[in-house]
């Protein structure tokens, strides 16, 4: 049996402004918004309501009623963000929370209430906590979102509507409780239909004719004959574990224990499903409503508690518990099949398939970022393109590494300009100057001409020379362009062993 909760923040905007400035709590004050060239009241607080001011009133009328009325500019965007934050905070009660703009929330509480010792206590706890945060709320629980909304907004005593009892709860409520369009509500009242019980049993054909299809849909949603599509603010992760704490946790040891417990719970489930984590997020919901989170990624699916814990451990210090963390959540947004035969390679050990190697790569990349490279040969003559990054630890080379050409062990990231003395065309230079030092060339090999790969890049060819100076150091030089072009330049590209 599905159970839904509707939370109505009676004075969401004004409550929020009162939180920023507690003085406003006592005095009547309203928020204003321009509409069609005049100012209207867009939100009121409890004190202003008692003086007879209501939403939608022209600001001038409200001032006439109460000359010392305090007025502030409304910030609807900000209020929506506040509502979203509240929705995130409500994730502690159920993993499924949807927004009900402008000032409400829907919670799918199916199967959650027993954790709080029954539905009554569950709703009370919710009301108590939200009131303690400074919001006036009306909370109702029923079998359908529509009925819960109706009771929260128009019920005499909002609270828990027992399972199956939502029809009775709806009957005495006014038609506004069905979330109808204002014109329809107005027409209903004109016809003397002031309560739902007066028209709910009328023939459907007659109702559709008079009030339209939308009216029937709203009625069916409240009654439960039609499902109401609602979107949770965060899609539920299939691999997701929660650990609520009786007392807020502030110590590092406490957080570590919580993480370990969650990992054990998650890894057990993963193991049973033959799955492994590729990415995981650890969240701590703080007492003050903020959410602290750290995330990790692995290079191959893993359900080893110790390995995943080590990855989190490096980042654990960045969690700021402040006044305490009351709920820990561990999610695995990315899981992959992890078959038992992969486990066997661990036994064998050695080589690139070793699990311990993958674990090392994870540890390094979680601290310094994706800066671990493995290279495979690529079929290009241009030296900078003769190798490429491998996509995984296991990827095999498609071609052999070339050994027929001499390449230096160390290259400069960017070839550096040098001055040379090269009197004879296409002969190696006699000496070159690099960083102020003159190297006299004793031996040389070359040239090895490497043409630009025109289908990838335009430019001049390079004539490479391997040279050895009088001290025995070996260098890789090249001339860009033809000797006769007059625009040629010489570069130092690498050091041979």
């Amino acid at each position, binding site marked *: 049996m599905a159970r839904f909760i509707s939370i109505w923040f009676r004075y969401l905007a004004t409550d929020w402004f009162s939180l920023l400035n507690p003085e406003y709590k006592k005095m009547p004050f309203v928020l204003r918004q321009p509409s069609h060239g005049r100012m209207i009241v867009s939100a009121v607080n409890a004190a202003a309501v008692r003086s007879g001011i209501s939403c939608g009133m022209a600001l001038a009328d409200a001032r006439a009623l109460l000359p010392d009325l305090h007025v502030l500019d409304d910030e609807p965007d900000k209020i929506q963000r506040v509502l979203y934050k509240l929705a995130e905070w409500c994730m502690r009660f159920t993993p499924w929370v949807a927004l009900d703009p402008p000032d409400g929330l829907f919670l799918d509480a199916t199967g959650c209430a027993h954790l709080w010792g029954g539905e009554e206590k569950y709703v009370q706890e919710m009301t108590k906590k939200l009131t303690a945060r400074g919001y006036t709320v009306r909370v109702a629980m029923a079998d359908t979102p529509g009925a819960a909304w109706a009771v929260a907004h128009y019920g005499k005593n909002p609270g828990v509507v027992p399972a199956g009892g939502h029809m009775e709860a709806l009957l005495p409520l006014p038609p506004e409780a069905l979330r109808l369009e204002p014109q329809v509500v107005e027409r209903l009242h004109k016809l003397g239909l002031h309560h739902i019980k007066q028209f709910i049993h009328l023939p459907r054909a007659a109702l559709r004719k008079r009030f339209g299809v939308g009216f029937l849909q709203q009625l069916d949603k409240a009654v439960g004959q039609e499902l109401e599509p609602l979107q949770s603010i965060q899609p539920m992760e299939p691999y997701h574990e929660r650990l609520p704490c009786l007392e807020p946790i502030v110590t590092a040891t406490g957080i570590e224990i919580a993480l370990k417990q969650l990992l054990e719970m998650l890894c057990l489930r993963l193991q049973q499903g033959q799955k492994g984590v590729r990415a995981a997020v650890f969240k701590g919901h703080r007492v003050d409503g903020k959410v602290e989170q750290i995330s990790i990624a692995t290079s191959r699916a893993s359900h080893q508690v110790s390995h995943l814990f080590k990855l989190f451990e490096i980042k654990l210090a960045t969690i700021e518990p402040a006044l305490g963390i009351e709920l820990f959540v561990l999610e695995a947004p990315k899981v992959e099949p992890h078959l038992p035969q992969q486990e066997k390679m661990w036994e064998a050990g050695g080589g690139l398939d*070793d699990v311990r*190697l993958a674990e*090392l790569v994870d540890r390094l990349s979680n*601290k*310094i970022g994706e800066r*671990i*490279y493995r290279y495979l*040969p690529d079929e290009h003559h241009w030296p900078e393109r003769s190798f490429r990054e491998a996509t995984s630890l296991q990827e095999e080379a498609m071609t052999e590494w070339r050994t027929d050409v001499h390449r230096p062990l160390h290259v400069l990231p960017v070839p550096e300009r040098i001055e040379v003395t090269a009197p004879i065309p296409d002969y190696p230079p006699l000496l070159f100057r690099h960083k102020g030092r003159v190297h006299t060339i004793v031996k040389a090999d070359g040239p090895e001409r490497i043409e630009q790969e025109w289908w990838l890049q335009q430019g001049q060819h390079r004539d490479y020379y391997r040279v050895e100076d009088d001290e025995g150091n070996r260098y890789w030089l090249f001339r860009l362009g033809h000797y006769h072009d007059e625009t040629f330049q010489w570069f130092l590209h690498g*050091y041979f062993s």
Partner: protein
Amino acid sequence: MLAQLQSDILRLQGFKPAASGLGALSLGVIDEAFPNRTFPLAAVHELWAPAPEAVAASSGFMTGLMAALMRPRGVAVWISTKRTVFPPALKAFGIKPDRVLFVEVPREREALWAMEEALKSPALTAVVGELRDISFTASRRLQLAVEQSQVTGFIINRNVKPTTTACVSRWRITSLPSETPDALPGIGLPQWRVELLRIRNGRPGVWQVQWQKNRFVIATDQPPATSDQQPFQQAG
């Protein structure tokens, strides 16, 4: 009797006799300089290379050593702030370039951390770190890491004046003019002057080493002193 005692002392000091699978590394005459007459594995070696030319020469000698260690399916990690190694060139020194993982750390500080993490992992055969400098404490940490995992570490130290470290050895490799058969023109096989400046429980020395088709060839005659180097001094 005396040899037996000596090896017992070495074992107690943490020098384990070469493991059966790794016996392939034999350096001929140079082996005489090492404790137990075997190249110390599961230790951190330091190569002092103050200039880019020296870095290239040191890397050449070192990759030659690593190639022997990495046969048949070892994996190495090469840590630096900016990769300067040209991966295809490793093949000429007997290493399959796709069995080396290059780690580029954003700062020098992370290089030490990454090196320590890598040295702790028994899945690796060798770890290379190109560092600007290393303190005694940091090198001690690295040495402790390898004692657990049996990985061999190499540090290319680019400091001009290196400080004392806890590394098992300090090498200095400089290029020597290459030789071509029958004095043909062109550049011949790589040739180095290999100086073992410091070795724990061994005897330092200096040799002339040539790299020939996947193996070292050590010249037996006295190495020539090149013009730019100070005369060889017995260190330690």
